């Protein structure tokens, strides 16, 4: 098939034209032979192993009927149980839907990750931020931004500075910024504008890689093994497991973190992003990173966006860990259940 190969080669250039192999979930082939360089890579390889294990556990492939509901009519798809994801369903509909959908909605009430296998016959809807009621996708987007900020913050600092992520609170768009709390071993660091710009740049770079958000539900032991070097997370995991009997972890690239989810389809959905400020939370000895972002396709002039940026510079007091622990149990992200879906 030389022609077909060359064809593929040509079409690499177009970003929206053809999917890149790296977008495919199954194409990730993280070899165990690579030596574990740091904790992030170690976590990632553990994630791979756990994922492969869960994949093997599926056993015999069963078929389920998935009814895809859209404005243009319904479509009935026969998919594989515990293997096919909503993203796989979009491949039978349109590439465009697969690229733009933020999150899926199963049986009109349960938000479902685009890369999470479907476990039973259901009806499926794809949600976008441009929908009439974009409450779910907006919150998913906001949460994913916090997650990505964690990935960026982990990578961004020098090697001699140990970054330990604490957590990020449940998404609150009204608060004006998405938030990440992390321990970075510094106390009086006030970031210069260039440093903040560098963080924003890293966010955009991550977004341009269009990495998928992969989801796994693991047991307490696996999770504790993964986050063995993170005392905050160890603390969280035990509390979470006590409440929910499972721990949900997500991965983007090599970054793995705990979150209830759901997350958006891939990182490329961020259109515009600014990391506006950091604030030192004295009681927790944590740094709070704050940013503001807009999804792709939502355009705003520079002045209006500047207003949002200026607001994001102020301290977002939404669920500061030391205060939140008094009223919410256990970790903030798990504490608040999703509000009514049909808000």
């Amino acid at each position, binding site marked *: 098939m030389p022609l077909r190969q060359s064809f593929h080669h040509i079409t690499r250039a177009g970003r929206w034209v053809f999917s890149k192999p790296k977008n495919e979930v199954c194409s990730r082939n993280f070899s165990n032979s690579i030596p574990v360089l740091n904790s992030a890579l170690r976590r990632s390889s553990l994630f791979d192993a756990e994922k492969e294990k869960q994949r093997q556990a599926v056993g015999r492939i069963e078929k389920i009927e998935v009814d895809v509901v859209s404005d243009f009519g319904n479509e009935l798809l026969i998919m594989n149980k515990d293997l096919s994801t909503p993203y796989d369903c979009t491949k039978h509909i349109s590439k465009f839907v697969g690229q733009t959908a933020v999150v899926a909605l199963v049986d009109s009430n349960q938000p479902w990750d685009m890369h999470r296998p479907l476990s039973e016959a259901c009806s499926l809807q794809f949600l976008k*931020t*441009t929908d*009439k*009621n*974009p*409450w779910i996708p*907006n919150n998913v*987007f906001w949460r994913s931004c916090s997650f990505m900020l964690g990935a960026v913050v982990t990578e961004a600092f020098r090697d001699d500075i140990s970054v330990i992520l604490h957590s990020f609170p449940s998404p609150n*768009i*009204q*608060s*004006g910024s998405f938030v990440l709390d992390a321990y970075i071993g510094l106390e009086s660091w*006030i970031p210069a*504008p260039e440093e*903040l*710009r560098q963080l924003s740049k890293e966010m955009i770079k991550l977004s341009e890689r269009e990495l998928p958000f992969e989801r796994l539900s693991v047991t307490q032991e696996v999770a504790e093994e993964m986050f063995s070097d993170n005392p905050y997370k160890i603390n969280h995991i035990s509390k979470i497991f006590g409440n929910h009997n499972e721990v949900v972890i997500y991965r983007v690239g090599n970054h793995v973190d705990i979150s209830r989810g759901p997350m958006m389809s891939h990182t490329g959905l961020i259109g515009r992003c*600014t990391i*506006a*400020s950091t604030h030192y939370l004295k009681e927790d000895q944590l740094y709070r990173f704050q940013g*503001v972002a*807009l*999804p792709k396709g*939502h355009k*705003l002039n520079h002045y*209006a966006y*500047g*207003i*949002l*940026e*200026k*607001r994001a*510079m*102020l301290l977002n007091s939404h669920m500061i860990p030391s205060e939140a622990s008094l009223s919410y149990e256990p970790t903030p992200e798990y504490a608040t259940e999703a509000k009514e879906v049909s808000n």
Partner: protein
Amino acid sequence: MRLNKPTPLRPLIHYAELSKLVSRLKIPVHWHVKKLRRGDVPGPEGRLLKLRASVTALFKYERIEMDYYPADEARGYAERLISEAVRNGPQCPETMEMADWWLEEKQLVHKLFKVLVPRYQNYPTSYTNFYRAPFWYFSDGFQPQLNEEYPDKEINETIPAFRTVSYPKGLLELKGNPYPPIFPSKVTNPRSIQNVLLSSAKDFYKSKEGGSERLSNAESGRGIEFVPNEPKSDENLIESSK
């Protein structure tokens, strides 16, 4: 400044014609008049006859697609005709004469006074919509008319191929027509993320703490720089002659 504009010539009138009273049109009116040609009748009369056909078609079908510039001209005449009809009503003989002349079919005169005038009675905006339309191509099913002077088919196929692509097209419609709208209705969604962010920012700044924080923040001046690529010297500025 656009360069292709015609040179302004001094108009022949030096004062406003005060004896006539007209209502203000709600469309942008160009100061220069586009010359239009009609084959059989030369000059401004041919221009008006050509526009008359367009105006009649507009009143008949309520949505037409035609060459952009004739459509732009015809839009003004249609607006004026409706505004005269709304203003004076069918009792005014001059208005009736205008409607008689501009609308070639008799039933359209009735339509103007009985359908359109009630429709546009208290219209705060213009009565027509005007859009740019795509070019016409053979592939869209457009067949240029054969030129009878040249019965040779080959010539007839080559000549219009160049002529048909060279003129932009426009779409002209009366407002309130029965067809489905050309664009989906532009209802801004207050729940979209930028609106949520802005309205929450508004609430935040309106509240007391936001207002005070805003001031303190402005004074400290710490945070993000909003000025990328500020040039070093004044060489980026428009030159002056001194």
